[in-house]
């Protein structure tokens, strides 16, 4: 996606996000994905870690929020392209003068905002049900980390979307893509617990740096150097993702027009 398109089409991006939210909130499966599923994960983790103190609870709250973010991008954003294909709107969207990656950016924005609700739901669950007093070590830096994480997740999601445009059957791979990212990005436990050879893979995943920034500013030492490194890596990978996505969208949309995959078989 051309970086300047975010600014040229900001009004369209906001409208796409608004309409996407209104459309999805009428779907009970989506409400389950963003509210119920992260809460189940949070309850399981809070039970396992009970007795270890408020810091661990906060770690779980942030971690389960991140799982909600990733699931939302992977399933809702991906499925929404397949959904558009099945309801016959994918062709209508592609044939508008708005670049398709701008539309997907707006959809991803809606999904990321939506899944922030997961984090809020987990927070309320931990404090009301388990009685933890949750405190952020650096609230302002945490908010900054959340905003950068939104951008990083949206950009990462833009790489996945073209695959859904091109391949009708990619849904069967979604499950295989969900848990490896939970684990490799250190959402629910530090990657130091994993074998050493997995570390380089974690380093190239923007969600890993988002998790690091969010954990560091919520329950970590609020070490400014570590936070800035995580922010810098998030920005760096976001720009790389946008460049890759730009090329992928161009190639995949052309290929979809050659192979006639914008419509159902």
């Amino acid at each position, binding site marked *: 996606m051309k970086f300047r398109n975010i600014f040229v089409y900001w009004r369209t991006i906001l409208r796409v996000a608004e309409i996407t939210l209104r459309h999805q909130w009428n779907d009970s499966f989506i409400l389950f994905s963003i509210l119920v599923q992260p809460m189940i994960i949070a309850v399981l983790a809070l039970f396992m870690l009970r007795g270890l103190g408020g810091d661990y609870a906060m770690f779980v709250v942030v971690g389960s929020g991140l799982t909600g973010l990733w699931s939302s991008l992977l399933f809702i954003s991906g499925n929404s392209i397949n959904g558009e294909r099945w309801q*016959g709107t994918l062709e209508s969207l592609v044939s508008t003068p708005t670049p398709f990656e701008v539309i997907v950016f707006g959809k991803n924005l809606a999904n990321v905002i939506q899944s922030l609700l997961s984090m809020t739901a987990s927070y309320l669950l931990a404090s009301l049900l388990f009685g933890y007093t949750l405190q952020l070590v650096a609230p302002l830096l945490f908010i900054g980390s959340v905003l950068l994480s939104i951008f990083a997740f949206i950009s990462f999601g833009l790489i996945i979307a073209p695959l859904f445009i091109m391949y009708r059957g990619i849904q069967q791979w979604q499950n295989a893509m969900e848990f490896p990212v939970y684990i490799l990005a250190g959402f629910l436990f530090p990657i130091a617990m994993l074998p050493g050879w997995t570390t380089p893979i974690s380093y190239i995943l923007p969600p890993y740096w988002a998790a690091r920034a969010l954990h560091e500013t919520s329950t970590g030492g609020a070490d400014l150097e570590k936070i800035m490194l995580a922010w810098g890596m998030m920005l760096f990978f976001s720009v790389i993702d946008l460049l890759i996505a730009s090329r992928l969208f161009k190639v995949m949309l052309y290929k979809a027009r050659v192979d006639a995959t914008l419509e159902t078989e």
Partner: protein
Amino acid sequence: MNSIEVSHLRRVYRSTIGVIRRSIKEIVAVDDISFDIKEGELFGLLGPNGAGKTTTVKVLATLLIPDAGTVRVRGLDIVKDAQEVRKIIGFIFGGERGLYWRLSAIDNLRYFASLYHVDPDVSKKRIPYLLDLVGLEGRGNERVQGYSRGMKQRLHVARTLLHDPDILFLDEPTIGLDPVGAREFRGVIRNLQSENKTILLTTHYMFEADSLCERIAVIDQGRIVALDTPSALKEHVSDLSVVEVETFGVPEATVNAIRSLRFVDALSVEEQGQRQRLLIQTPLGAEAVPDVMAALDGLRVGRVTVREPTLEDAYVRLVGGKE
């Protein structure tokens, strides 16, 4: 001046068959067709199912890449200048799909207005105007899932006109509509025609094409078999009469036997529940009736009439009596 220029267009669909020994199956949907549409013209594309009509429209709407040939919309190449072409065209594919059913009609229109970069102040006025134009006034806040098929079709029209495109592609827009809905829809098309919009219409209904289109291309098996005005197309069958025979349970072998009679030029069968209507084109007129009745020996026969040919008969002759 031409709005649309199609030159030697060819489009092939490929699919892979088999798991271990994979082979590619090719279906030629459109095979070397050429035609032009003048600015402000209402041009019809007629043909049986699978003839290549929808493929042609999708290529024009920038949704498919041609395998060969060039397609220009107001001088713009549909492959290289797709983004520019999309600003000046609108399309409707027949059926109920293509809308967000869980949203209201107004939300659907607001969404697409934004994607077509219609100024928000303009769309605020244009959306109620379009809902009024297509007869959905007062229903705009209802979710689309509660709409009838006809209402959805009309909402499609409103969506297509949001950015006031000069060129419209209407692919079987009246399919599935009840007769009253279809007639109202034709009224909308006539209004658009009076606004000097260039329209490409595909339809199965001959009277629709006859009453609306200035020129018609008949397409069969991916090739254009005739292109002319409706009255000129009717000339193709001016030497013929049509014998209509109502039958009950006529077997395929008997139909083929009649088709092979030396004086039968083309024959099509219309299924009407328990009844069939045989439409036999012949230069003999009423003189053909005794031989036809002899071929139907032993079968129950209803009304038999002989009439002058219509555009539909011209179409049947051109596509070889397949429908």
